[in-house]
């Protein structure tokens, strides 16, 4: 318990560093978020906008931002609400809170779905290969896994669209609204994860099968399959589990490529649009969400680790 609390107490400090670094990087991007392509507003208007959004001074901007986001500004009575990530600079009709609120559930749905699919496919493929190392089944799944890791999502995504949406018309193209819209993006996003899981599990199993306690189990009369199922799988899954933490965070915060190919309005797409448009507040807001998610998920994985493997002692690991 102490370990968890310690980690959570570190969270604000880590977040502050992340936000400060992000801010200095975004501020250095050339260009002014208030300017756009096409028609140019008069210079007076550009100046007025800069002052209105405090773009004339990085210090005022960052100070105001921290006060607003942490809720200090709310306590002091400067802002109307706490935890306000501010207005989006490139979307005059939307606040950053609204944009993240709209994009994150979509990316999270696709991400979690992709991880679930990846776990199913990856586990099956890993088991098939790991139980019969050197067989043609093993070689086949390893080859497919290699392809899954190497082929970029925009290729698999476009391929799936052309095949299942344009040719056979099983799934709709573009947009969001029904579970059918979610399936192809989930599948596309899941493939590299599935391939990775399959490889981790396969090598984990092969290694576990040669350990002493497995040999003992076999000697006691368990069949190869029984031994693998009861004793090896649990340990072979450890590397998969530590991979799952960051992988879930990555998948949930949205893959820009998958969201672009399927025209899904998720957080990944909004984030890239924000960087290209130098939408400072939106970039910082998304990074903040990403950081929180990554830290929390890593913590969850560490806790799960201790649960699976009693040899890991969190209390001591934390006090190191």
């Amino acid at each position, binding site marked *: 318990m102490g370990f968890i609390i310690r980690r959570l107490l570190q969270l604000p400090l880590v977040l502050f560093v992340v936000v400060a670094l992000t801010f200095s990087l975004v501020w250095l991007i050339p260009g002014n978020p208030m300017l756009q392509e096409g028609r140019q507003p008069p210079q007076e208007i550009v100046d007025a906008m800069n002052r209105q959004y405090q773009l004339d001074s990085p210090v005022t901007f960052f100070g105001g931002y921290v006060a607003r986001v942490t809720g200090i500004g709310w306590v002091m009575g400067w802002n109307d609400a706490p935890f306000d990530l501010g207005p989006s600079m490139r979307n005059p009709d939307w606040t950053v809170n609204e944009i993240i609120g709209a994009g994150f559930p979509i990316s999270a749905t696709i991400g979690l779905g992709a991880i*679930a699919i990846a776990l199913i496919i990856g586990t099956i493929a890993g088991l098939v290969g790991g139980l019969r190392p050197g067989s043609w089944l093993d070689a086949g799944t390893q080859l497919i896994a290699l392809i899954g890791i190497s082929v970029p999502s925009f290729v698999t995504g476009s391929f799936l669209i052309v095949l299942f949406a344009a040719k056979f018309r099983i799934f709709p193209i573009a947009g969001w609204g029904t579970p059918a819209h979610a399936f192809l993006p989930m599948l596309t996003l899941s493939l590299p994860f599935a391939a990775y899981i399959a490889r981790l599990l396969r090598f984990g199993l092969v290694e576990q099968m040669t350990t002493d306690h497995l040999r003992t189990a076999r000697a006691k009369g368990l069949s190869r399959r029984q031994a693998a199922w009861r004793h090896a799988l649990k340990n072979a899954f450890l590397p998969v589990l530590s991979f799952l933490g960051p992988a879930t965070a990555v998948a949930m915060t949205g893959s820009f490529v998958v969201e672009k190919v399927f025209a899904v309005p998720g957080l990944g797409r909004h984030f890239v649009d924000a960087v290209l448009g130098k939408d400072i507040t939106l970039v910082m807001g998304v990074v903040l969400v990403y950081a929180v998610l990554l830290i929390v998920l890593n913590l969850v994985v560490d806790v799960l680790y201790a649960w699976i493997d009693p040899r890991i002692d969190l209390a001591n690991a934390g006090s190191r």
Partner: protein
Amino acid sequence: MRWIVAFFLIIATIVLARALLTFDPSRLPAEIKFASSDVFTLDPQRMSYMQDLRISRSLFDGLCSHDSQTGLPTPAVATSWETSPDAKTWTFHLRPDARWTNGDPVTSMDFRNAWRRLLLPDTAADYSELLFPIRGAPEFFAWRTNALAQYAAGKNHDAESAKMLWESTLAAFDQMVGIRTPDPHTLVVELQSPVPYWLDLCAFQTLAPINQASLDRFTKIDPISGFLKSDPGWTKPGVLITNGPMKLVDWKYKRSMRLEPNELYIGPNTPLAKSVEVVPIEDANTAVLAYESGSVDWISDLTAEFRADLAESSRKWLDRHREEYDLRIDAGASVDEALAALPAPDPAMGERRDVHVLSAFGTDFWSFNCRPLLSNGQPNPFANARVRRAFALAVDKVRLTTSVTRLNERVATTIVPRGSIDGYVSPTGLPFDVSRAREEMASAGWIDRTGDGIVENAAGEPFPTVDMLYMTGNPRVKNIAIALAAMWRDALGVQCELRGKDGKFAKEDLRRGNFMIARGGWYGDYADPTTFLDLAKTGNGNNDRAFSNARFDALLEQAAAELDAGKRMKILSEAERLLVEEELPMLPLCQYVTLYMYDPAKMRGISRSPRLDQRLSRLHRVDEQSASPSP
């Protein structure tokens, strides 16, 4: 093993719960769905993007609207108007039965409030200058800008002093600006000088009225800056109060937007559509796939790389039935009716009928940097008009449109699209003439003195490598840039270097003058040559070239003061002649086209007027049977 199963179950539950929360199956699919670029804002005073204006046109009715066939201004909220004998004072009579979606009557005050908002620098409207013809409007804009600057520099930044500043602003507006409301249904506008295209401006969407009470709930005065700030919340469904034929029922960020008929609407633009959904798709290929699979009925800007091939297959089909098509048009059918009645295209022969190439009210051009020095301090060879003329003369525009863009756009020698404005006679412009181009180069001192194929000046220095700036993201622009570089190298003996940049960063370079030649282009906002010619005015905010010519500026001023419409057009024509035959701050290439993708046998209501002012309220589905009656 239990924990693995448990983990799966947890994930499955979360996914399912999330899915149920984010999916919204309650609504029926819309009658018409169309693919559009992302909507930027629904605030009528702040918008300037075409896709925003298109939605606004169905949400807000202005004083006038554009006729879908002719593009001329017709009554909307104003039923009639008169002008004073000196053509400076306009009196608009508003329809007494016009209503906002909350039931409030639409009054002249709503227009006055909206226009004041458009003129406030606080609003940061791209189009505040559209109101500058009104007496006192530019002065008020400057006054408020100055007052805000003084407030920021001053000592008192409390709520009380901010409120006082706002009250004095309201008083200044009343006193300075020539917009009066004698009664709720009469609006009187006094112009500084006669503006022949004033009615056309009154049909422009940024001049749409605003329901002040609904906006006030989201507006506050910022005590630190003195600015009037609006909360983004006011344009959301259920909150946004509009007066147009459609109303906003749903808007999800970069996901979907839905419009349905406004049952309180009384006015000339009665909606035909039952429901319209805007599907934002940024990826051009995804848009085409979405159309092909029936997810959208209309692609409002087809930019896929293979669009020239798509257009070709439609042309092929139409050519095969040209005779029958012409007969139907002569018999009075609309283009869509005639297309829908022709025999269906044969996909096996690579034919289609759903790609439409429409000319737009815009000109594709490249800009010459006219500053005497480049941004790196070196002398700029393009400061010399002879060099600019030489580069313009050396471009084979027909080859560009037939074999580079392959869309057969109409070649342009002028900035104002030829024949687009009644009563305006376009100048001739420069032809494609390589030998004349070489003469111009030679007369500017650039001759190939060493025989290496590169021109040098009298001091023997070669022509500096031409820095060509273009915006990445559109293959058409890049292809044109490559072709231009080759034409200039072959005809003039100069080396060019392409420099592609993302639109936003390219804009920065343009503002700082960090280029020699850059990709440009402009769409007209109202039916008058000045909507294009103002680009070349000294100090204009969109004059990326920093072109400055006293004679040109004087001609524009002379035209602004001219009361006789015919004489005014002659002066403007002379001004444009100066631009496109002598000074060449920009090199016009061709008239812009917009490609639409829709099947005329399934959907109707698209306007083909060159302004392409589409009204979503007019879109509707047609039955395929009834759409193709036997001839």
